[in-house]
């Protein structure tokens, strides 16, 4: 198994390969390989999605992905749409 942690200032749903998988800032487990990581709504985060390769991780050293909070003026109505 491989381990991933998605860092975000808020507690938010994490979506991996298009499916909900727990929340931000905790250790999540996945099988080795490439996965697409994003967050659930609201869409006040960037980047929209990150492609990660999980390999040779450990529960004590999970792969770390970070999303940042967008300022209110930059928040799109839906992913990919203009603010």
């Amino acid at each position: 198994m491989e381990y991933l942690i998605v860092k975000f200032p808020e507690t938010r749903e994490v979506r991996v390969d298009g499916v909900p998988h727990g929340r931000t800032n905790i250790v999540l487990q996945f099988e080795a390989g490439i996965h697409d990581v994003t967050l659930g709504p609201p869409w006040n985060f960037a980047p929209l999605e990150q492609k990660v390769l999980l390999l040779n991780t450990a529960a004590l050293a999970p792969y770390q992905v970070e999303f940042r909070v967008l300022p209110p003026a930059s928040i799109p109505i839906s992913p990919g749409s203009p603010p």
Partner: protein
Amino acid sequence: MVRARLGALVVLFSLVAVGCAHYPLNAPLATAGDGRTGYRFPAMVVERPDPADEIFVCLSFSGGGTRAAAFSYGALLRLRNIDIGRTGRPRSLLDEVDCIAGISGGAFTAAYYGLFGAATFDRFYDRFLARDIQGELALSALNPVNLARLASPYFSRIDLAAELYDTTVFGGATYAALAKRPRPFVILHATSMANGAPFEFTQDDFDFLGSDLGSFHVGRAAAASSAFPFLLSPVSLRSYPPAAGFVIPRDVSRALETRELNPSRYAWARQRLDLMAGQEEKWLHLLDGGLADNIGLRSVLRAYDRSGGFIAQRINAGHIKRLIVIAVNARTDPPEQLSRQARSPGLADVFMKTATVSMESLSADTIDYAINRQSEREQAQTNVRLCNQRLAGCGAEPFPTFAQEIRTCFVEISFEGLPSPAREQFLSLPTTFALPEESVKRLIEVAGTLLDSSPSLQKLLRALRGEPTPGAGVGESGNCS
């Protein structure tokens, strides 16, 4: 004159029957759903975790004809009588079962319980276990009308078997009826004749066929799961162009990018894409599920491993506190005769061994994999917990943790666990859909005996009741603690 007319009528009827005889086609799917419709494990609602997820139990019922069906029925019976009384009122371990994977003979018990729940214990014995299904199939094939139907290239013995199961065992139930039932989610398995890939009767796999599982009859799925090579012909499904709006799931498309890093994920994804029709007509011919996995555990493991898997999602969300997998393995090991003869085995022996010889090693590998996967999770949790305990002692910031520490339990019951001479007797039982009633009753009973004497299960029950395990210290860990 009358006789001649009668003869002509019979010939005419036969010709019509031959011309019309065609197995029922699976229906195309017009529009792809959002991954929540159709027969698949319910999509997780993160905001409202299902309390039923807390103790998450999956059963796997192996193949083995009526032997496996009776053995798994006996396991259900015993689980129904195990009270785990979690909420202050009686609740059986069977009430906690969330999914059942069924193969071949075990598929009948799994599907019947999925469809009829508690009524299984009033009906399944007479409807299936006590019957000479093989004799009925042979009689059905000798019926003149069916003889004519069997002459059609589009209707074969398995289609007769599917009709028999559908009408006399499952009451004509379709997957739409199964989808209306509460848990457990039932996964019946078959094997693709083209590439040996496992096939699951779930809407997730039917999506790749562009087909709607809802109108498909459960009896026909059970027939596919038990279509033993040479004895029965395959069940055929049509692969249609993808439904409007169908998008290949991300876990499949991403798996194709990393073959060398994760060959099993890649192979699984490749096999899903192989189901899809291109420009030309495509058909999927399904044989006994035991050819790919005779213990039925692999679909449960995929649900644990894959990012789209319903167990993985619930573990990461912290909904599952205990993950319990009980494998009901009706494998046999009859006395070996081939090794005692100097002459080369005949064609019949070669055919039979070709169809069955790989099942054993595959099943053992699958059990090893299941145990290792569970240990791996427990070990990871222990590492994080112990490190954080040390860090807390010196006031340092702790490592991030999992959403929930889960306790895992893997239980396997098989005839190997019996003392002699019962062990040898059960290991010598044949694989057939016609067992003497005495054997059926003994199989039902022995499943209960094996569960009662399983150290892992007994350890689990003590843990669920909050009782200490004799000889164990505080904070006991390990399988089923």
